[in-house]
C-alpha cells in the first residue's frame, strides 16, 4: 500500500482494533509464512500455466458450424 494511504489506513485500523478482541496467533512468523506460501504456490501455478496452454491447443480444434 502507498505511504500516503497507509497513514489513513493505520488510523482507521487502530480505531477498529480498539473495539476488537485480542487474539494471539500461535507461532506466527510473518516473513516465513510469506515465503512458505510462495514456495507452496510456485509449482501449482506453473502446472496451471501448462494446463492453460494445453487447453488453448485442445480448444482450437473445435469447429463451430451450427
Amino acid at each position, binding site marked *: *500500500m*502507498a505511504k500516503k*494511504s497507509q497513514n*489513513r*489506513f493505520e*488510523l*482507521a*485500523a487502530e*480505531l*477498529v*482494533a480498539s*473495539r*476488537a*478482541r*485480542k*487474539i494471539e*496467533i500461535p507461532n*506466527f512468523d*510473518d*516473513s516465513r*509464512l*510469506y*515465503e512458505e*506460501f*510462495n514456495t*507452496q*504456490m*510456485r509449482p*501449482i*501455478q506453473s502446472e*496451471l*500455466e501448462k*494446463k*492453460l496452454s*494445453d*487447453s*488453448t491447443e*485442445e*480448444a*482450437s*480444434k*473445435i*469447429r*463451430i*458450424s*451450427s
Partner: protein
Amino acid sequence: MKVLHTTLLPIHELLLELDEICEETYRFPTNAASKSKIVGYLGSLRDDLLAYVEYPYVDKVYRNSFYSFFSTKHRDYDRDCIRVSLFENTISKEHFRKPELQTALSKAFLGFVVVRPTMPKLIGRSVISPTAFKRSRFANCSVNIECSVNGVRLISSGFPHSSQDSETIKCAETTVWEIMEYYGNKYPDYSPVLPSIIIAALSGESYERQLPTKGLSVEEISHALKVFGFGVIVYARSIYKEDLKRLFYTYVESGIPVIAAIKNNDVSHAVVAIGRTRVVDDKIEASPVSFVVQDQGRKIEILDVADADREYVLVDDNFPPYQLAKYDDPTAYYGAGKFQKCDLHAIVVPLYHRIYLEGSKARSLITNLLSYSFVTMFLPFERITLRMFLTTGRSFKHKIALDPAIKEDVKEMFLSILLPKFVWVAELSTPELYSRKMAFGVVVLDATESGGNGADSVIFVALPEHFFHVERGKFVPIDFVMEPFSMHLSNLRGDNNNG
C-alpha cells in the same frame, strides 16, 4: 419522398401485421412471418405488451450484410427492415408527443427487435429487457443502447441478440457480434463491430473463402476477440474436467459474457452465457462439499457456490434471448432433436487486456490461502460458502462505501486501501447468511499480478475477528472486528429485483 409507416398495436395482433408487411413490402409468400421462428419469439414475450411497428427501417447490421453479400446475389433482397419496439401497455400515441409524458414513456419502453428480409431467418438485431419476457427471474449482463422510436430518443436495456442469417453470420460470428455490441456500447475501450468487420479481422487467418460462412473454429473466435482488443483466455473441458464448471460460473458471476462451445456427435454450436438464476434461488444447503480445510482437529467444509445446482442465462441465436439451462445440459430448451444431449466443450473468455491473473490461478491462490492455519483458525463456522468473482476496484469500493451493514471505521479501513483496476474477490459466507445475500469474510487479490509469486497477489483477507494484508514480503495481521456485510451483487443486473 419516402414515408415511414408506423402502427401501435397489442402484441397479439403483431404477427398478422408482420405477415401483411412481409407480403406487401418484401413480396414474401402469404403468412411468411407466421411460418417463421418469429412465432416462438413472440410466444416467449409477455402477452400484455404493446408493439410499435416502424418500416422501412435501416438496420446497421443487416445493411452491412446486404452490401457485403446479399446485394451481390441474383435474387432481389430488400435492403430495409422492419423494427418492432416493445412497451408496457401503459402508453398511447400521445406519449410520443407530450413532454410531460416522456418519463412514463421511457419507463414503459422495453427494447426493440428488427425483422430482416432474410426468409426464413427473419429475426435480426434486438436489445430487449428481460422483463418483457414471461420468464425473467434471473440476473444478467445488461447494456443501455440508445435508439429513436417514433422520433423520440429512448434507452433499451438488455443483452444484444440476433439470429443468424446462415450466409454472412452463423452462430459463431453472431456470438462475436453480440460480445462486441455489448462491450462496444458499455465501455469506451471497445467498439461495436459489423459482420464484414468480423470477416476482415479473420481474413489473414483464413485459407479459404469466408462467404458464404461455414462457421468459425474456437481459435478463430478467440482470434477475432483478440483483434478487437481483449486479452482472451480459452478453457477446454478435456483439460479442466470438472473445474471448467467452476471457471464458467466464476466468469459469469463476474459479469463477463462467456462464449460457450457446445457439441454432441451431430452438432457443434456456440452460445453466449450472460447470467444465472438469482442468488436467493441457489440451493446452497443441498450443494456438495467442494473441499475441507482443517485446523487443530477442526474440520471446516467449504461449499464453492460454483458447484450449486442452478440455471445459466444463455443467448442462443436459434432461440429468443435469455434461455435458461444448466451447465450439464446446456441445450435442454431445444427439447427433442439433434441438439439433445450436448455438452459444453470449451469456453472463450474475453478479459480486459490488463487482467493478468486468470480464474484457475486466482482460485488456487484462494483455496490454498484458506487452508493456511493462520487463516483457518479465524474461520468462525464449520460450513462455509465460497463465492469468487472479478470486479473493478472502483465497483468493490462503491459497494463498501454504501453498505449500511459495515461500520464506519471498517469502511474507512477498506476504502483507504489502494486497489488496482481489477480485483479478484472471494466472499465467505454460510448457507444461512448466503440466503440473505450476506457474507462474513472477504479475500481480495490483485488481478493485475500474474500469480508467479503467489503471496504478492494477495491484497487483504478480512475475517470477522482478524485482518491480514501483505506488505514488504510479510503477511501483516491486525486485530479486527467486522459484522456480516452485504454480498457484492452489482456485476449482474437482476438479483435485487422484485418478482
